[in-house]
């Protein structure tokens, strides 16, 4: 009996200890992630990326954590009669079998009170937390402020 209990315990502990990442890896693909380089005198920046949900259910990004900033929020920019409003979002939802691009002027990860002036060439480590307990580690390069439409000029 003791044997049975201990083996049951051992088995269940194995289940608990198994990282959920292995199967989560197929649920969400992150690409084109970057953190925007900071001009001098500014205390904040934003992270952008493409999130691809490969499951049949919507995925909700609830939170992003990183040591680099005092405060990190999920934001969207909404145009209300021409006035651009930053709206904190309780979550960012990626629809089933769909992609969502976090980009300037739209959904983004807002990093406030950044501890140093981030420059191109650096990297920022962050953790993305999703509904249902899934987490993803991400290392995003710092890139200069370049709109997507920019072509290398003179």
């Amino acid at each position: 009996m003791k044997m049975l209990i201990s083996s049951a315990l051992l088995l269940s502990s194995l289940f608990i200890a198994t990282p959920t990442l292995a199967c989560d890896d197929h649920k969400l693909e992150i690409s084109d992630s970057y953190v925007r380089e900071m001009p001098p005198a500014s205390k904040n920046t934003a992270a952008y990326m493409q999130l691809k949900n490969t499951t049949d259910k919507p995925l909700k990004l609830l939170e992003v954590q990183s040591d680099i900033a005092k405060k990190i929020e999920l934001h969207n920019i909404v145009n209300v009669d021409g006035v651009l409003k930053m709206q904190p979002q309780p979550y960012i939802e990626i629809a089933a079998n769909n992609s969502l691009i976090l980009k300037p002027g739209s959904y983004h990860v807002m990093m406030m009170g950044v501890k140093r002036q981030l420059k191109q060439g650096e990297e920022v480590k962050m953790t993305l937390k999703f509904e249902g307990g899934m987490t993803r580690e991400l290392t995003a390069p710092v890139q200069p402020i370049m709109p997507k439409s920019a072509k290398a000029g003179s």
Partner: protein
Amino acid sequence: MKYKSYAILFSSLVLIMLSGCSPTEPATTSNNSLAPGKPAPNFTLQSNQGPISLADFKGKGVVLFFGYTNCPDVCPTGLSSLTQALKQLPKTTQQRLQPIFITLDPTVDTPARLAEYLRYFHSNLIGLSSNQQTLEQITQAYHVVYKRQPQPNSEFDFIQHTAYFYFISPTGKLSQYLPHQSSIENLKQALTMLVKTKQKELI
């Protein structure tokens, strides 16, 4: 009969919803003097080199942008596009253009801080600050709508604002305005046209 009244109610609701102002232009106030072809309102504000007026740049094309240095997304995007548009123009054209950034957050954005921030984008950018009262007059004249959005537990507030580039001809007339997300190509065209205006006026 019941359905009819629902239909009327519904369509009147839709009409009410559609009657909001157009989101594509600077908000119009009762003061309607700002329009392409009309003189751009003059101003005198503080740069880190002393007071600067719009009238100082007669003979140059001026591009104006209102924002603030703690602006996390909109202003860097706009300033970056403007910078690249300028850099892609011939040197002679660039020399006849003056980009100006006016802060909406004068308590934080001193002329020195603005200069430091703007150097990151383009060496020709002039940053202007002022007292709140003077700023009120100028933003009204340019139909800039802005509102402080306090942030609890944060070192700074966000400011909601309209974000347009104002193109002012070498003779001081408003030529046109474009939204901050305009393509580099569109900004280049608008800037080039400003300088062409000057050539036309000289003939």
